């Protein structure tokens, strides 16, 4: 039955807008809208509620199974790239690093950081005797995002070489959304102090941008409240609904930043100063950077470029990297899954041995 509208009819909608602004959860806005409609036409609001619940629950279950209904699992869907789990880095050029001692779930898999803010086991700064240390630097593909540390390609390389002398350790210095400038800064300020024998910088890296969604120095955002996000809207409209993009558009310009060729030179300089062997690894495909420019600079400084997993690249495929495999971490997020990690490791180990980044077996 239609009721006369009252001055407080829009109040639930306004509350919903506040909820959306505070949490970025679209469900607050929808609930507010339904609340206002309920004060106006209760039966219409009932049908709206039923429709919203049906499409939302249906989408969640179809995407994630029973995990789609679980608070803890959905709350593990945090912004991995530029999110609340990062803190301002010790060096301004690194911009951010992982908060230390994290022990939680991230994107449905266990996620732990050590006391150095690395997604790795606890490691002493001083290299143990009879150990060969390889630092691994990269962004989300290298982290690897949405894959347990045990299944990461660099862990699998380490496992493959288990039992050798010297013992091989691959140290993971990656953070998602890292760009080349940050990678060089991480190499200098975070990786090299671990007394590395070799350093591997993996692409894809995030593009060099002046106007990203973060400020420098880094200010961590509030944690994402994924449970209150509408997966139906994300599912249907994707990034159009990422309101952060609308409020704070990012630019693809790299004006004013150190050119990538010069950054490769910086990397070579660090390697030389610290007697570390360095290689560039292209995981699946290099994007955001001019591959020819990177390869020219690498050749100029005697840095080998190793490509692995190229068979997973293709045009018009899931991820902007051109990742073409059904083995993605979960629907709506096309990062390489555990099966792809195994293939990457299988190809990387012999390549690193060939290029002298790993010790040859006795």
């Amino acid at each position: 039955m239609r009721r006369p509208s009252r001055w407080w009819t829009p109040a639930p909608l306004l509350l919903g807008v506040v909820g959306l602004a505070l949490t970025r959860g679209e469900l607050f806005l929808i609930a507010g809208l339904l609340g206002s409609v309920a004060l106006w036409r209760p039966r219409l609001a009932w049908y709206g509620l039923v429709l919203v619940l049906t499409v939302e629950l249906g989408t969640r279950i179809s995407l994630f199974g029973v995990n789609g209904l679980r608070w803890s699992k959905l709350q593990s869907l945090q912004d991995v790239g530029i999110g609340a789990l990062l803190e301002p880095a010790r060096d301004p050029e690194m911009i951010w690093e992982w908060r230390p001692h994290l022990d939680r779930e991230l994107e449905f898999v266990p996620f732990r950081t050590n006391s150095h803010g690395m997604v790795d086991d606890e490691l002493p700064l001083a290299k143990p005797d009879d150990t060969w240390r390889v630092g691994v630097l990269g962004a989300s593909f290298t982290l690897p995002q949405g894959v347990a540390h045990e299944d990461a390609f660099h862990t699998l390389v380490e496992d493959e070489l288990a039992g050798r002398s010297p013992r091989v350790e691959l140290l993971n210095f990656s953070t998602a959304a890292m760009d080349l400038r940050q990678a060089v800064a991480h190499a200098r300020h975070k990786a090299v102090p671990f007394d590395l024998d070799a350093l591997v910088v993996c692409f894809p890296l995030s593009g060099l941008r002046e106007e990203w969604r973060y400020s420098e120095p880094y200010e961590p955002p509030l944690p994402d409240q994924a449970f209150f996000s509408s997966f139906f809207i994300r599912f249907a409209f994707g990034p159009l609904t990422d309101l952060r993009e609308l409020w704070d558009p990012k630019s693809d310009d790299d004006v004013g930043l150190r050119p990538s060729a010069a950054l490769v030179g910086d990397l070579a300089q660090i390697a030389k100063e610290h007697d570390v062997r360095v290689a560039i690894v292209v995981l699946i495909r290099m994007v955001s950077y001019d591959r020819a420019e990177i390869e020219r600079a690498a050749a100029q400084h005697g840095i080998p470029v190793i490509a692995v997993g190229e068979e997973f690249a293709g045009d018009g495929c899931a991820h902007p990297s051109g990742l073409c495999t059904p083995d993605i971490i979960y629907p709506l997020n096309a990062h390489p899954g555990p099966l792809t990690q195994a293939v990457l490791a299988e190809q990387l180990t012999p390549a690193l041995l060939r290029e002298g980044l790993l010790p040859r077996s006795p």
Partner: protein
Amino acid sequence: MGYAPLVDGAAPETPEGPPDGLDRGLLWRTLAVIAVGAVLVGLLHLFGWTPGRFVYQVF
């Protein structure tokens, strides 16, 4: 003053309809809305989505 006697145990009529009865119109429309929602999700799976099409544009 007296009360209206109940005839054969029948509940008194109210403006909203019989109190013990089911609002079948509401029920059927609700089920129809659920069906529309389910079809919407199904169509989205079939035509509106490719695996991982929508991801944050960062690495």
